[in-house]
């Protein structure tokens, strides 16, 4: 039975934001992952240039994402497509 993991998108100083945890570990291939947007602006986690993988929609402030199921092992490095220069996060699937 899979587990469900939450990644918070938290507001930091200024207009910054941060993923908590920045690296999500111990994820199994069938586990579920959600992003929760606690910031005051939209975010859109995903893999740039690959529109068949990751979130279909941006995440509006004060809401959460659909479920992401990795399906394969490895390390997924993601960024926020709306703020591509900001630091991204990682999901370690084993």
């Amino acid at each position, binding site marked *: *039975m*899979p*587990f*469900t*993991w*939450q990644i918070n998108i938290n507001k930091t100083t200024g207009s910054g934001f941060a993923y*908590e*945890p920045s*690296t*999500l*570990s*111990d994820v*199994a291939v*069938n586990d*579920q992952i*959600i992003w*929760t947007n*606690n910031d005051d602006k*939209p975010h*859109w986690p*995903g*893999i*740039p*240039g690959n*529109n*068949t*993988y*990751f*979130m*279909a*929609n*941006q*995440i*509006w*402030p*004060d*809401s*959460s*994402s*659909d*479920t*992401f*199921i*990795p*399906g*394969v*092992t*490895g*390390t*997924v*490095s993601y*960024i926020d*497509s*709306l703020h*591509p*220069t900001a630091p*991204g996060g*990682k999901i*370690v699937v*084993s």
Partner: protein
Amino acid sequence: MTAVRRFGLGAAAGAAALLLVVGARVPASAQAQKIVPCPAQGQPLLPMPEISSHNTGKLKATLRLIDTTRVLWDSGSTPRCATQYLRVFEGTDPTNPKPWPTGSDPIPGPTFRAKVGDLVEITFFNEINPLNFAATLDHSVKGSTAACDKFVGSTSATKSAPIYGGAGGDVFPNCLHGSTTTNVHYHGTHTTPSTTGDNVLLFVRPALGKKPNLMPSESQTNTLLAPFFQKCETSGPPKYWKDMPLAWQALQHKLTLQYDTTTSMAGQPPPLPLASQITPVNTHEISQGLWPQYHIGAVPYCFPLPKYDPAKMRMGQAPGTHWYHAHKHGSTALNVATGMTGAFIIEGKYDDDLKAYYGAGLRQQVLMIQQLGTAPFPLMTGGQPPAPPPISVNGRLNPVVTMRQGEVQMWRVLNGAFRDAIQFAYFQNQSANQCAATTPPAPPPVQWRQIAQDGVQFNVANYERPAGAVNTQLNLAPANRADLLVKAPATPGTFTLCVVRNNALFIQNPSGIGAPLPPSPLLTVNVTGTGPAMDFIPPAKFPTFPAFLKDIQPSEIHKWRELVFGAGFNTIDGKKFEDGVVNQQMTLNTAEEWTVKNQADDKSHPFHIHINPFQIIEVFEPNAPEATTPGNPCFVDPNNPATFKPCPAIQAKVAPGPPWWIWWDTFAIPSGRQIQLTCTKATCAPALQPYLQCPATGNCKEFIPGWFKMRSRFVDFTGQYVLHCHILIHEDRGMMQLVEVISDKTMYTHH
């Protein structure tokens, strides 16, 4: 609906590259949900906190739905455990408030204990934070997937797919959705299904805002609803929304408007699109004199547990082991899987009679079986699905029940699993975390006798016969309950109760389709110490059988019906749940006889209907070992429809009688048999034609449905409620019908 923006097509496209490195590892950072050591098995059974009516005639309680982290275990080949956000019930007795247990065990909600004749007064609060769970919405256009829960996989085929989507997949309202919204079904109660009764058509959304500033607050709710409960105590449940306190009506309207105007959908800014707003739905329903469907943060439940009075009622509330659980269409499976269940013990003369024989020495155990997880099951992500969640009792795996040597205890066993049937197989003479696949020990070291089914006591004839389990196999489909008298051996020792998880098929054909998993431990009995000698209650002292539970006679039958649960696609009578359509309409204070068929050959859909229990009078199991053995008198010959009928040797196991049929409120419909034939529609034997499904060209398939016949009295309460499959993911996906009991009286006079 606003068009969904596609990821990767904006300014960010191409800004970075996918990094998917197989086997790479990085240091973990702090997180609320994390892998933790698994709790040891063999810990003491946790007694659930109880909220009682204290002999006041009123069961007053606060029931909260909260989100919190608890330790869950998975069921993979390498066991792992993790702290997980769960949506769980906790409760408070307002007359004796105590802190709710704060441990890491995923325990069920409080056990309610009331008496027949009591008035139930429960204020239910939904205080979960939706942000701790995946995006989910309550309302949308029928037939669309806009409000269905979605998952995003790693392939183009699973790109933002509805869960159980694809061609011919789930659409609203028969899709997983709205799991932060809930209600409470008081399973086994004989009461009003309307307004503030056992009303599962309510949708109670989470309170708005964040703790400690939730709207509505508990104090505000309690203040505004106090006059409602006072009125309910004198006049009973309200009939109309206009009977509720005006301030409560106004507050709920304000909050639904606020929900509609502040909620985001599919990443778009508020307000919700009109098709997903809930205020217009409520406004229309109230204008039609109906109880509004959507509520924010809290609802009051106030309803009687009626005591049988032949001058006023046709039936009464059966005293026994009942339960409550979440029951919002689209999220029952997920919500029950996350632990939204609790026991509801309703005491009556049954208990008085047991106490008269045993005195105060009959100790009780309330055993809530659960199958806990945070994801829909089975997942449809392709590949090999994970194993179903393990079975726990009161929040622990294989807990220990302590008994004295020779002691008899009363076990109230509830199968609150969202999916699996649980078969009691045998006790083995050792304490072990794995059950030996050997012949059960004889004589059994720990003995039991069944005294009630689904919260309705046995007639002494069935206790003597015996109709239930006696040291042998007892199969509890999801939602079934059984009261057992369990007797410990006279010598000390530890004994493991081994059970088999199954699709309710084991009693039919253990080697057939859907064969069960190997036995596994449910709990361990530790027998130690001495006490007064005890034995099973003698038949002469067995609890008196209530008059209102007398058998339903053929002469009482007002109408006959047939329902067919389909093979695949979650249908009843060929259709998924039709929002707004009443499928079965019964006349108040009449009895009916239903034949309920199952075309599936891989599972026994557990049929459940609310409000009134029913008696099983006939069972046809075409996959029973006897029915599949040529030469056996019970053999069901696919070429001879004359053999498609119940066989006494099989039926005696599950539906003995008459007289004194057993009462149930959930019964697993025996699975059907499917046979691929080598003839076409034109060439198959005429006698088989009613059982064939044939393609336009090619050979036909023969369907021999399993079925049961039941009789029920639709008495005392009018209103709308539901029947459904209690494999709850089936219910969420459409295997449900709306039923209505209509009045047998009219205000008009005719001359």
